C-alpha cells in the first residue's frame, strides 16, 4: 500500500472509532440517567435496566479499545484521549464485577457511569484522537505494566468512592426508616465494607504503580524521583489512602473520618490523573509527563 492508502485507511478507522466512542459515552450517560430515575421510582427495573445497559455498553467499549489497539499496534493509553477512554473502561468493568453482589443498589451505578461518560466526553470534546507513535521515553516494557496497574487502581478507587458516597447518603436517609437506596440497615455495614475492601485491593496496585513509575523514570531519565507534579500527586494519593487504611484501625476514626479520607483519596486520584495537567499549565510548572498533558 502507498502512503496515501495507509493514511486513508487510518483516517477511516479513526472516524469509525470516534463515532463509536460518541455512542459509548452517550450510552454511559443514558445508564446514569436511568439509574437516577430508577432510584426515584424505586422500581425493580430501576436497577436492572442500567446494569444491563452498562454491560451492553462495555461490549461496545471493548470493541473501541480493540480497534484502537489494531490502529496503533500498541497499548491504548499513550495520549490523554486514549487514557480517558481506558479509565472509563476499567472503571465500569470493575463496577460491573463488584456490583454482582450489590446489583439492587443503583446509586453507585449512577456515580460510576456519570464519571465514565464525563471522561469520554472530555476525551472527545477536549482532546485530539490522533494516533501518534510512541515517543522514545514511552518505548519501554514498563509502559504497559506501569499504566495498566496504575489505572486498575484508579478504577478500583472510583468504584470504592461510589460505594462510600452511597453509604453516606443511605446512612443519612436511614435515620427515620430501616431501608434506603436498595439497602437495609443490616446491609449497610457489609456494603460499606465493600468500599474498604476495594481500597485494600487497590492500594498495593497503586504502590506498584508508583514504584514501577520510579523504576521506569530511573531507566529513562536517570533519576527515580524528581518531585515532578505528577509524581508528587501520585504520592499524595498514596498517602491519603494510607491514612484511610490506618484510620480503619483507630476506633473513633473508623466511620466518618475514614469515609472522608476515602472520598478525599478519590479527589486526589482525579487530581493525579487530570488536575496536575491543569495545575502545571495554570502555574507554568514544567512536567516531564508532558505526553499526558
Amino acid at each position, binding site marked *: 500500500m502507498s502512503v496515501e492508502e*495507509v493514511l486513508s485507511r487510518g*483516517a477511516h478507522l479513526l472516524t469509525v472509532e470516534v463515532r463509536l466512542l460518541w455512542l459509548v459515552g452517550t450510552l454511559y450517560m443514558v445508564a446514569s440517567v436511568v439509574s437516577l430515575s430508577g432510584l426515584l421510582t424505586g422500581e425493580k427495573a430501576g436497577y436492572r435496566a442500567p446494569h444491563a445497559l452498562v454491560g451492553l455498553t462495555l461490549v461496545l467499549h471493548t470493541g473501541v479499545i480493540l480497534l484502537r489497539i489494531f490502529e496503533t499496534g500498541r497499548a491504548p493509553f499513550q495520549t490523554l484521549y486514549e487514557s480517558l477512554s481506558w479509565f472509563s473502561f476499567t472503571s465500569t468493568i470493575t463496577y460491573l464485577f463488584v456490583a454482582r453482589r450489590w446489583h439492587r443498589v443503583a446509586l453507585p451505578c449512577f456515580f460510576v457511569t456519570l464519571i465514565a461518560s464525563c471522561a469520554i466526553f472530555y476525551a472527545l470534546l477536549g482532546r*485530539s484522537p490522533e494516533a501518534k507513535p510512541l*515517543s522514545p521515553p514511552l518505548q519501554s516494557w514498563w509502559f504497559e505494566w506501569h499504566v495498566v496497574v496504575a489505572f486498575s487502581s484508579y478504577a478500583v478507587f472510583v468504584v470504592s468512592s461510589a460505594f462510600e458516597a452511597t453509604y453516606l447518603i443511605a446512612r443519612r436517609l436511614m435515620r427515620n426508616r430501616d431501608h434506603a437506596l436498595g439497602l437495609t440497615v443490616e446491609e449497610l455495614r457489609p456494603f460499606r465494607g465493600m468500599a474498604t475492601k476495594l481500597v485494600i485491593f487497590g492500594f498495593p496496585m497503586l504502590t506498584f504503580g508508583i514504584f514501577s513509575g520510579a523504576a521506569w523514570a530511573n531507566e529513562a531519565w536517570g533519576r527515580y524521583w524528581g518531585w515532578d507534579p505528577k509524581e508528587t500527586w501520585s504520592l499524595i494519593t498514596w498517602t491519603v489512602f494510607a491514612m484511610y487504611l490506618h484510620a480503619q484501625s483507630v476506633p473513633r476514626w473508623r466511620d466518618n473520618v475514614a469515609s472522608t479520607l476515602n472520598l478525599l483519596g478519590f479527589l486526589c486520584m482525579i487530581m493525579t490523573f487530570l488536575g496536575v495537567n491543569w495545575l502545571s499549565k495554570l502555574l507554568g*510548572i514544567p512536567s516531564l509527563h508532558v505526553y499526558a498533558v
Partner: protein
Amino acid sequence: MRKTDNIRGRLYRWFTSLRTSVYLFALLTVFYIVGTIFPQGVDTESYRQAGGRFIGAVELLGLLDIFHTPLFYLVAILLLVNLTVCTWERFQGVRRRAWRESPDVERTYSFALSCQETEEVLEEFMKKNRFRPVSRDEATITVEKGIYYRYLTLLYHAGIVVCFVGFFLTGFFVKEGLLVLKPGEPVAIESRMMPEIRGWLAKEGPPPFSIQLDEFRTEYILSRKLNYPEDGLSRLAMALGWQDITYTDEERYYPKDWFSSLRILDGGTTAVEKTIQVNDPLRYRGYTFYQVGFEERLKLKMDDKVFTVTTNKKKKIDELDRTIIFTGFRRGTLFRPDGTVEELHPFVTIKELTEDGKKRPVGRLHLGESIEIGGKSLYFEGFEETSILSYRYDPGVWLLWYAGFSVFGLMALRCLGRWYMLRFRIEKKEGRTLLTVRIHSRGLMADAQRVSGLLSAHLERFTG
C-alpha cells in the same frame, strides 16, 4: 516502657500510635501540595520574573525548594522514627501473638462423643483442610492456615523503613550531572565537573575514566497532520456524519528514537562500547549514563557573513532586520507509513516571527542549498550535533528497588492472600460435649463463612 508515665514513656507511646502516623502523613501531604503549587528548584529571581508573588514568604519558608528544607526533613525523619518504633513494637507483639481480636464467626456444636473422640474428629478436619497446629492446652486447640497476616504487615513496614534507608543513601552519596558530548571528543568523569551535585557528602576525586561519543543519530516516523476540528460543536457534527476525519498534506516527523554510540576510555584503552538510547542506558563501574536529549547548531551564510544558530531558539538576523526561528532540524533515518525507509537529506524548517508574535512558515532549507528571505539568500553551510547525557552514581538505588518491590509483594500478599485461625474449645456440659469454634480470618480472599460451612459439614455426622 509503654506503661511508664514519664516523658520517655509518653514519647514512646506517641511514636507507637497509629494516630501519630496519620498526623504525620497529613503534615507531609501539606508539604507535597505546596511543592506542586510553587515551582521547585528555581531561583527567586526567575520566580519573580515569571510573575510569582509573596516573594518574602516564599524565600523565608524555602517554598521554591520545599523538599530540601529542614522542616520537611524533620517531618520525614519523625515519620521514619514512627514507622521504625511501630515496626519494632509490633515485632514484639507478633512474637508473643499478643493480640486478642474478636472472631469473624463463632459457633457452638453439641456432640454425644467424648472429648477425646471430638478431638479426633477435629484432627481429621484439620488434616483434610491443611490447617497446622499453633498451640494446644487442656481445653483449647488453636490452628491456622496461610501466612500469619501480622508477619506480612510487619515485613512490609520493615521494607518501607529499608526504602527510607535507600533514599538517605541516595541523598548522601549520589553523584549526578549532565554531559554535553561532541563526536570524537572524550570527556573525563570527575566530580568537579558536576554542576548539579546534590549528594551531601559527595567528594571531589580524581577522574576515574573518560567517555567519548563516536556517533549520534536520530530516527523519525513520518505522518501527517490530522484534519480534526477544534471546537466541540464541529466534533459533534463530525460524529453525526457531517464529514469524515482525513489527513492533510502537512508532514509531521515524530521522533522514533535517538542513539549515541559511546566508548568508555579507562586507563588509556577502550573498556566498553555501547550504543545507548532512551530507556537503554550504559552502566560502568557504578555509573549509569542516560540519553536525555540532543542539541543542534546550524552554520548559515548570508551576504558572505557566516553565523551559527541553535535550533528552536529565536534569532534576530541583522541583515534582514527580522527574527527567525530555525525549528525542526531533521537528519537521520525516516520510517514511512508504507513501510519504506529512507535516509534524510538534512534540512531545517524556517519560521518568521511576525509583529503580533505569531510564527509564519517561510520554508524548508536543505543542507548545501539556499532559500530567499526578504530578498536575500540564506545558505545552509553545515551543522554540529551534540548528544546530551545525564550520568548518575547512586549506591542507594538497588536497596530501594529490592525493598520497594518486596514491599509491593508482601503488601499484595497481605491484602489479597488468605489467613485463617480457628480456636476450638472443648468442654463437657450436662453429659454432652460442647465444641465452640472461633474463626478469625484476614485477606480479601479469605471467607470465614465458607470455612465455617466446611466445618459444619464435617461435624454434621456427629452432632444432633
